[in-house]
């Protein structure tokens, strides 16, 4: 038994499995798009798996998350049913949102996933409200709200973090700083080194971690969640990471170099975690291969499931606007 972040060997391997599952989902998503099987666009999180998995690992199953436009990873880490998620991605009636939401709007209220969001910073304010509900009803639950470096420059970021602070809300704001808001590098969009430094303007703690180091993400989030659950109020976390793929499907990657992308691929959060687990004797090479191939076969079977799912019927087009 290793003592990595106090997590059992089994739990550590499970977190590795989740990262593999996310990556396999994202590669498959990319492929399905190339094959013309999904329409619209999507925002892939390949390279950012450790922030999603590490942060959500610090929650209880009944805690809440708000996700972002780049949200497949959050959704899977929060325990989404892979079949329903793939069906939604394919726009099928059986999907999480009956094919109405697609890639950018997957929610799974049954497992506390209050939804991805098509608006940059769109979930920051709702996270205050969901956290307020927990506080007013003394549920002891916490809300984890993901957003990106781009969202940190929206006005609602200021409104939300300030409100969370003055009301001591049980919310953790997690900035996945992948260093680009579409094509604009964070050095050009933010004048300070660390986005987490903005926390001091609201009077609560902020911390920046290596977002490609799952255990750093986990431990920082665990502290923040404990603080929130104990009534200590919000925390602003920042994980520095990098998306390997473009912003969306329209991105020709004109704004960054191959060298930069390759340099970050060398900091692959999955390989790093795998190596660590092997060093610590938590994982054998055979287990590693098996986890990866298992993830791939799960994705294949989800694709098969989604293939067989019906399209939404046209006569249901207006259903679900009003309760």
């Amino acid at each position, binding site marked *: 038994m290793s003592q990595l972040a106090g997590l059992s060997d089994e739990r550590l391997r499970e977190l590795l499995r989740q990262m593999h599952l996310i990556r396999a989902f994202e590669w498959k998503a990319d492929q399905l798009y190339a094959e013309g099987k999904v329409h619209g666009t999507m925002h892939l999180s390949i390279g950012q798996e450790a922030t999603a998995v590490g942060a959500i690992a610090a929650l209880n199953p009944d805690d*809440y998350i708000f996700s972002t436009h780049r949200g497949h990873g959050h959704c899977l880490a929060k325990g989404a049913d892979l079949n329903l998620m793939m069906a939604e991605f394919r726009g099928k009636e059986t*999907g*999480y*949102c*009956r*094919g*109405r*939401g697609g890639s950018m*709007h997957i*929610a799974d*209220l049954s497992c506390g996933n*209050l*939804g991805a*969001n*098509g*608006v940059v910073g*769109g979930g*920051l*304010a*709702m*996270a*205050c*409200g*969901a*956290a*307020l*509900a*927990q506080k*007013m*009803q003394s549920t002891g639950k916490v809300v984890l709200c993901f957003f990106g470096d781009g969202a940190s420059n929206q*006005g*609602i970021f200021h*409104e*939300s973090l*300030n*409100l969370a602070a*003055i009301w001591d809300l049980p919310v953790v704001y997690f900035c996945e700083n992948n260093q680009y808001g579409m094509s604009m590098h964070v050095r050009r969009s933010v004048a300070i080194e660390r986005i987490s430094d903005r926390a001091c303007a609201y009077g609560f703690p902020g911390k920046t971690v290596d977002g490609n180091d799952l255990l750093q993400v986990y431990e920082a989030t665990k502290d923040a969640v404990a603080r929130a659950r104990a009534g200590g109020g919000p925390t602003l976390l920042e994980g520095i990471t990098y998306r390997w793929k473009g912003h969306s499907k329209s991105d020709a990657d004109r704004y960054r170099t191959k060298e930069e992308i390759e340099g970050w691929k060398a900091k692959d959060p999955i390989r790093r975690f795998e190596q660590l687990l092997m060093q610590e004797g938590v994982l054998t090479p055979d287990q590693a291969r098996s986890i990866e191939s298992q993830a791939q076969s799960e994705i294949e079977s989800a694709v098969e499931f989604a293939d067989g799912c019906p399209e939404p019927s046209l006569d249901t087009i207006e*259903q*679900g*606007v*009003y*309760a």
Partner: protein
Amino acid sequence: MPEVREISYSEAIREALTMEMRRDHRVFLMGEDIGVYGGAFGVTLGMIDEFGAERIRETPISEGVIAGAAIGAALVGMRPVAEIMFMDFVTIAMEQIVNQGAKLRYMFGGHATVPMVLRTPAGSGTGAAAHHSQSLEAWLVHVPGLKVVMPSTPYDAKGLLVSSIRDPNPVMFVEHKLLYPRKGPVPEHDYEVPLGLADVKREGTDLTIVATSIMVPRSLEAAEQLSAEGIEAEVVDPRTLRPLDMETIEASVKKTGRVMIVHEAPVTGGFGGEVAARIAGGAAFEYLEAPIKRFCGLDTPIPYNRTLEYYTVPQPETIAAAARELAAA
């Protein structure tokens, strides 16, 4: 029969809020200065004494997060009633209202509910000029997923607000500043005025006036002037703009053959265009004896000067004049 006591429009709103908060512990209020101050128009005055600061929750001047937090709380089972101090400031909250609150249910395949109310006072007549006088209801009516309510009497204000709080959808409850002190009969008991049901405020035979919010009492005043001249106007108050009760409006138009739509908001792109289009495209069209008329606010911001402000929006005598023209057409 004992007479029903009379209370003001703002007292009626306060009574609805108070009764619902006593009935349902999930109901709470959020907004700027709604505690000891009582809200900019005194609507929530004294409520903090009964319910405390936890449920009469004062916010900083942050309209975006007021709306967003209400949506987030509703999404996980609370019943928030948020107040935006002036309707002009819903512009600051529009991202949350339009992109989030209105759409979550549909985007999530019908699995989410957002049972919240956003109260906000609209309208001119207070000399507060272009940033504190707008009537932006048409912006909200345009968004699938929202319900939009505009009460014109204390009775309707109470009953519609009770229905709005109990409704499982995001409801935009648009009040009017000049209506707040107006009194009318309001039963003390708990009652609902259903959303989506118009009310004929005055019966008439010669023309129909479809009026919203403060334009209802102004149209009723105009109707009295007209009556003295032998013209009987029927005044229909939709009460909820979305969902819209076209049946009641069309029944009236079929009866009178003439219709004028009166609202305070600027005429272009206003709610009146929607009503006119529905009448023109519906069963009442063939009963029309004259073109559908819109008599609404001018296409200008609300000016400061008293006289300019007065004539920017319909008034009883200008409504009467417009109605006279229609009756003669």
